[in-house]
């Protein structure tokens, strides 16, 4: 079955989709309006709950596959001194449809897939990933902090999503839409929707993506980073960084984690939690030695990792330009500005 095929959705396709999929026992995850100005992905059973207008979700898509905290195993010390270990069962096999993530977040899953599935296959991540279909809604109004075009993405980017939905009316989702199938999973999704979608008429084309200036050149950035490890740029750049984890935790590609035990006297859980390379204790040895003792070295690591180390290792940049780190930064710092300056330095 060919992909990249276009379908048109009628005006109530979304409502129908949610109902149909839910009725089929699937879990539909969609952006919903929480507190004012906050949209997040939550489970929905009706299309009415789905947010109509939003730039992007506050939290990135990654949490659906790599939760902020999850149990790996449970253990209990028995009276006889033995320890009973129960590995946490894998996520239930019911299918999950993410209906309405942004293309940048979908693209970010490509980065996540790389790290969770090389050499060792993280089965918990894999199970969640395998069961999910990503239906992305193309961006119509990127926010001022967005810079996806600078890192090879686009408000209408295909990468990572199984289906990409373009609004043909004003809204993202409510009115008439064009659905572009990118994968087999996407096809299956379309198939489930029955008569609410139909192959697009000849000549119907997706709208052109909104303008988003390209701010820096990742090749130039990489070139500068290759030589710039010892530059004093890092110290200046990092002065205002407060070392919190807001940028990492909201980043759709950051994937560092911690494994901790939490226990009462005889039983407990081993959990995996999000972690952040900006934290001063991240690399601290028990001996007291810390390979990255200063904030600037941690800031450098974060940028190096995203734009040099990760590409070298996995062949792609670990940034999709969603702009969350800029919006979340306590000190008003901007990754895009930093990289723009790096770009400028490289180009002299």
């Amino acid at each position, binding site marked *: 079955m060919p992909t990249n095929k276009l379908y048109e959705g009628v005006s109530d396709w979304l409502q129908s989709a949610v109902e149909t999929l839910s009725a089929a026992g699937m879990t539909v995850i969609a952006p919903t309006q929480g507190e004012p100005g906050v949209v*997040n992905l939550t489970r929905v059973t009706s299309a009415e709950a789905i947010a109509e207008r939003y730039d992007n979700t506050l939290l990135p898509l990654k*949490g659906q596959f790599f*939760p902020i905290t999850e*149990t790996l195993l449970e253990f209990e010390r028995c009276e006889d001194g033995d320890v009973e270990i129960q590995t946490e069962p894998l996520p239930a096999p019911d299918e999950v449809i993410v209906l309405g993530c942004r293309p940048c977040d979908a693209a970010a899953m490509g980065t996540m897939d790389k790290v969770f599935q090389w050499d060792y296959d993280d089965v918990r991540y894999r199970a969640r990933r395998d069961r999910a279909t990503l239906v992305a809604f193309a961006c119509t109004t990127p926010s001022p902090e967005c810079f996806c075009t600078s890192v090879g993405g686009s408000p209408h980017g295909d990468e990572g999503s199984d289906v990409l939905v373009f609004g043909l009316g004003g809204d993202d989702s409510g009115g008439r839409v064009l659905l572009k199938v990118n994968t087999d999973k996407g096809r299956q999704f379309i198939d489930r929707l029955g008569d609410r979608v139909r192959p697009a008429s000849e000549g119907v084309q997706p709208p052109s993506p909104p303008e988003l200036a390209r701010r820096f050149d990742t090749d130039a950035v990489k070139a500068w980073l290759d030589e710039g490890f010892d530059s004093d740029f890092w110290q200046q750049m990092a002065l205002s960084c407060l070392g919190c984890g807001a940028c990492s935790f909201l980043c759709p590609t950051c994937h560092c984690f911690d494994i901790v035990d939490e226990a009462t006297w005889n*039983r407990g859980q081993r959990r995996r939690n999000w972690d952040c390379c900006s934290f001063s204790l991240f690399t601290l040895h028990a001996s007291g030695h810390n390979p990255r003792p200063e904030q600037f070295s941690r800031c450098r690591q974060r940028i190096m990792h995203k734009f040099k180390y990760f590409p070298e290792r996995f062949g792609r940049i670990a940034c999709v330009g969603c702009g969350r780190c800029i919006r979340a930064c306590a000190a008003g710092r901007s990754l895009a500005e930093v990289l723009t300056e790096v770009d400028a330095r490289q180009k002299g």
Partner: protein
Amino acid sequence: MIQTKHDQDDTAQWQPRIVAFLCNWCSYAGADLAGMSRLSYPASIKIIRLPCSGKVDPMFVLKSFERGADMVLVSGCHPGDCHYTSGNYHARRKLKAFRELMSFLGVDPRRFKFSWVSAAEGAKWSKLVEEITAEARELGPFRTFPEAAKTEASQ
């Protein structure tokens, strides 16, 4: 297979679990005196001895609740009688604020008790434990204190 304590809560024999932090010189000695005087009191109370009520960190109380306590008691020397001069005054100030904070966050302040029991007050101790145990039984199991989520984060 791995149960939480609440799995067994709803039996008729439910006994509240009260964690008590006692200062060494007054309240612990008072509890000791109650024992020496052959005064009985409910076994629901689990005593942790500290040098002074001033050594009770709010985190101890928090952790006790985390570990399933239905009630926490802190007990020290009467004002002015602290073996360390002022530990109980420090405790009084801090723990009052802590109780207010917990109450503000929706934790029932009746679950957190504070008392003065001197080394000579074995009888007061046993009566106190009787009373707070009765109150804890009335309040029922402390289910509302958050446990770690059983399901994974929904974000």
